[in-house]
């Protein structure tokens, strides 16, 4: 169904609000979530002709509640308990602010009992208001597969006994970390996509930024939440320049920086500046700070590489990972020269995660090219091209190999 972009946004923003009201009233997350999806569908069908009601939340809550009760009544196993529920007092006005509802829902959807794939799927549906079909197309999997993941996620939430309430304080840091990871993965899925258009695929980067913004509204003083939002904005700012119209990749060094989104850069830079000044430092803040340095540089050469190197060293000690190491080595080579970079790379390959990884070959190819050893560089580009799972990256690496003089 084609509905206006504005209406679509309104409906998605209503989703966590309406769902929170229902879950608080009936307690049954899985059933309420289904009912809210049906209410969103009804709104998408009726509002374009009838107009948006004066109180959209009230409308959606009313329709969703009716759907939930209908479903509940038709469920024979529960028929006996019907009278009990009918005698319940109708709830008063919502005493909890919307932002807190969104946070509680996010934590429920990113419950540790769920696999990351299920966490992402249920978050996009229950908090993001996307339909199963939209989520399936965004991840390029069949709709039946995605429906199964969502239903499994709901079963896992139910089986875990998790309630719609703020987790105990000792669990909060881990639960929040899980939410941030899901929003990071969702953003990344959208950002790395080079195929599909807005017509066929939901923009997962925009969706991740929107949800991270909501989380930031709920927790404005949390440095890592601010860091993630800044990282997303500062990375997404470069999207208009990262690929050619045919999908071919343009590396950071060759991007037309005039095409970067200055508004997003301004906002992201201000966010990360404020967070670094006020909060204890964390991995998302460090990555955002690195992104900010790239975004502020007039060119690849004019980038503040010494500071980027320092930030990567800090990041590597705080949250080590093979890709962080490789990026640190690239920065090392920019500061100390390609030979020094090759030396670091040889040492890093002791990590089995980096040995024979396509990125390791690609970095070595680049550094060898810089030292003038074009034959060795060509061979490394070819090894990298054979090992990558990304078709655009493979085309890029093959082109680099072919462009080297014999």
């Amino acid at each position, binding site marked *: 169904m084609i509905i206006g972009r504005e209406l679509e946004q309104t409906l998605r923003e209503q989703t966590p609000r309406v769902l929170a009201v229902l879950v608080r009233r009936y307690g049954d997350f899985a059933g309420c979530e289904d009912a809210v999806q049906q209410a969103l569908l009804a709104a998408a069908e009726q509002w374009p002709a009838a107009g948006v009601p004066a109180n959209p939340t009230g409308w959606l809550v009313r329709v969703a509640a009716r759907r939930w009760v209908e479903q509940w009544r038709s469920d024979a196993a529960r028929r006996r308990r019907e009278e009990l529920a009918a005698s319940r007092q109708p709830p008063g006005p919502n005493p909890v602010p919307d932002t807190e509802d969104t946070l509680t829902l996010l934590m429920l959807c990113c419950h540790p009992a769920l696999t990351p794939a299920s966490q992402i799927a249920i978050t996009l549906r229950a908090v993001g208001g996307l339909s199963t079909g939209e989520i399936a197309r965004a991840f390029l999997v069949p709709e039946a*597969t995605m429906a199964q993941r969502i239903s499994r996620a709901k079963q896992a939430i139910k089986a875990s006994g998790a309630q719609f309430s703020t987790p105990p304080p000792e669990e909060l840091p881990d639960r929040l970390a899980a939410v941030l990871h899901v929003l990071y993965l969702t953003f990344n899925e959208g950002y790395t996509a*080079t195929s599909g258009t807005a017509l066929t695929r939901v923009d997962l980067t925009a969706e991740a930024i929107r949800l991270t913004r909501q989380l930031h509204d709920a927790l404005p003083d949390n440095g890592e939440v601010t860091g993630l939002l800044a990282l997303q904005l500062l*990375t997404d700012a470069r999207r208009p320049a990262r690929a050619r119209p045919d999908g071919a990749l343009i*590396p950071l060094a060759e991007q037309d920086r005039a095409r970067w989104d200055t508004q997003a850069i301004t906002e992201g830079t201000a966010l990360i500046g404020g967070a670094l000044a006020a909060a204890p430092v964390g991995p998302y803040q460090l990555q955002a700070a690195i992104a900010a340095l790239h975004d502020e540089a007039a060119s690849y050469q004019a980038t503040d590489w010494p500071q980027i190197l320092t930030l990567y060293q800090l990041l590597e000690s705080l949250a080590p990972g093979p890709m962080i190491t490789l990026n640190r080595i690239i920065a090392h080579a920019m500061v100390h020269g390609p030979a020094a970079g090759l030396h670091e790379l040889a040492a890093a390959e002791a990590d089995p995660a980096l040995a024979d990884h396509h990125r390791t070959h690609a970095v070595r190819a680049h550094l060898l090219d810089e030292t003038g050893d074009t034959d060795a560089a060509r061979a490394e580009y070819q090894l990298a091209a054979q090992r990558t799972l990304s078709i655009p990256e493979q085309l890029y690496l093959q082109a680099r190999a072919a462009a080297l003089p014999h």
Partner: protein
Amino acid sequence: MQYVILIYSNPASRQTFDALPPARRKAGLNAFRALNEQLTRSGEMLATALLADPSLAKQVHVSHGQTVTGDGPFAEAKEHLAGFYLIDCDDIDTAIAYGAQVHEAAAGVDLIEVRPVMTFNADEM
């Protein structure tokens, strides 16, 4: 991460399968059904198919804009593709474990191959 599990057979392993008692063959089919249900329930199944006998295959060539077809597999082919799974799971070790389940289920299988699927996604470089 998406992986394809390729199921290869050959005439000898096919004969072994055909010679099995019906109960053993039925148990194999049930194991396949159970695996399919497991993968569907977990949300990891993207597609699967068991392929018809290779004698029913058509070779397709296009020459000077003309589509030319031929019968069956090449005579010298020892292995043939008997079926496949396309799954979306966490890592290759998970995919290998499913591959082992396929091998267990299919008595007529000569070889299971697990391969990562390429994507159109790309990280920044």
